[in-house]
């Protein structure tokens, strides 16, 4: 064997490594992936999702890694997760099952008029749709981007996978990033939209909700949603099943599994799969930049929509509602409700808004699912 043959062998060996196939776009994606891992670990921004998403972005952007493609016709590891979990729209629905099993709808049942706040909040979703079409997205893409303002991760993923799967990564990232930033985004808007007197409106004690009412609630809700917006029943049906399991009190083992181990397992696969869709050739374009900008606008208008709805309701109500709970109509549960509580306490140390804000917060989950259903119906 002569020197040339040895060099050839070395070169061909080098060509089978990632180093030989590196390119600048991959380096940028490493940065993006590491940024989200950093935000998850150092800033604690939605770490349960941003950490696996960030790692997913990082790991798929190495050259030649057998993760998101096919080997001899068989799907590779993350491709399997993506195909069965996201393309089949399974994972967002299972996340909703777990969320349902963790949720107490008591505050919403005690004060059902807060459901209207959840509807009013969707203003941002519909306004952002217009803006998104104006900057050149298709109608389906616009619908999937605009739902980000609903601040509901699984709904965003569900709708995007349904209408514009090519935007799944950026949309999910924008939704979860802004959900984590609710305490930064909302307070200035809340202060701008309310007067000091309005912020001091006292919250009266909520009535007691019986167990029977809590058991009936998921059945009534699922019945109404199935009749009016059947396209979101996979999401809402699982959400209400989880809640029925919890409230019935007869399937504790199932409830614990749904809200604990099952939810955790699915969260890992969901995060990784979403991150894995963000390969450099798909992600590095003008669209993600617009998605992040429009997502912020979306969140802001949704917050305004919720507060305005409370103000309009106050024109007709004898017992006024504190408009600070309007911002909780974005469905980032329970973060948005906590923001209402913190802001309320700044103006009256005895005025605890948390339980009152949980009502619109949960209404926001139903409202954003209804908005997603409207969009799906629009294109089906």
């Amino acid at each position, binding site marked *: 064997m002569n020197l040339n043959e040895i060099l050839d062998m070395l070169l061909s060996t080098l060509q089978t490594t990632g180093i030989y196939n590196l390119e600048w776009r991959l380096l940028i994606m490493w940065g993006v992936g590491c940024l989200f891992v950093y935000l998850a670990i150092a800033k604690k921004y939605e770490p349960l999702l941003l950490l696996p998403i960030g790692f997913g972005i990082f790991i798929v952007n190495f050259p030649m890694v057998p993760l998101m493609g096919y080997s001899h016709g068989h799907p590779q590891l993350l491709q399997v997760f993506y195909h069965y979990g996201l393309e089949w729209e399974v994972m967002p629905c299972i996340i909703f099952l777990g969320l349902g099993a963790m949720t107490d709808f008591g505050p919403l049942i005690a004060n*059902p008029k807060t*459901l209207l706040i*959840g509807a009013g909040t*969707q203003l941002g979703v*519909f306004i952002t749709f217009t803006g998104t079409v104006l900057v050149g997205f*298709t109608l*389906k893409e616009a619908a999937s981007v605009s739902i980000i303002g609903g601040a509901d991760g699984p709904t965003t993923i569900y709708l995007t996978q349904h209408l514009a799967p090519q935007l799944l990564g950026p949309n999910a990232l924008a939704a979860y990033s802004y959900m984590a930033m609710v305490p930064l985004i909302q307070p200035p808007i809340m202060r701008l939209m309310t007067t000091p007197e309005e912020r001091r409106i006292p919250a009266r004690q909520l009535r007691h909700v019986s167990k029977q009412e809590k058991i*009936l609630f998921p059945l009534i809700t699922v019945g109404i949603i199935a009749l*009016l917006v059947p396209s979101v029943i996979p999401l809402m049906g699982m959400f209400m099943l989880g809640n029925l399991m919890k409230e019935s009190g007869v399937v504790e083992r199932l409830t614990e599994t749904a809200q604990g181990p099952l939810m955790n397992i699915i969260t890992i696969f969901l995060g990784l799969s979403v991150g894995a869709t963000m390969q450099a050739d798909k992600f590095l374009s003008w669209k993600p930049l617009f998605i992040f900008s429009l997502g912020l606008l979306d969140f802001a208008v949704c917050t305004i929509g919720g507060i305005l709805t409370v103000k309009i309701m106050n024109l007709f109500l004898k017992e006024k509602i504190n408009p600070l709970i309007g911002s909780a109509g974005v469905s980032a549960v329970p973060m948005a409700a906590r923001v209402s509580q913190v802001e309320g306490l700044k103006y009256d140390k005895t005025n605890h808004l948390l339980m009152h804000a949980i009502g619109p917060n949960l209404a926001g989950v139903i409202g954003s699912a209804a908005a997603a259903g409207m969009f799906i119906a629009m294109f089906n």
Partner: protein
Amino acid sequence: MKNSVLFVVILILVFPLYSIAEGFLNVPVIKEGTTIKKTDSRLESTVNLSHDEAVTFYRDALEDYKDIKFREWKDATYIEDDGSRPWHSITISKGTKKQTTVIIVKDNWTWIITTLVLRYIGVFVVLTVLFLGMSISGKIVSGLVKRAEKRNAVST
């Protein structure tokens, strides 16, 4: 040399015009058609083809386009673009056997805004119905629970 340059310039100027003449808003138009009305945003024409033939023509012509939807209505086939193309819809009437009316309409904001407003109202309707359902069931159930509690208190 001058003549060659002139020829190329003329060719560049004329060729796009020739291409556009083939269609309206980038939608292919059936050649044998008679234009009834044409504005910047709408082209209405009749073609000597049956409805099925006209639909087949557009199915073939739009085969490679994504985000196109064919809806079958009672008196027309409605082709809608959900992408970002300059046209919004093509309506092919189900009229007489050998003459079909084809209407191509430009993408319009009236449709987008109207559908958005309706859907926003739709979200309110869904949650209002839920609100009413919960209020009624809440009153009934809490009434029944109170009555049962009273009965229990009396019996004990």
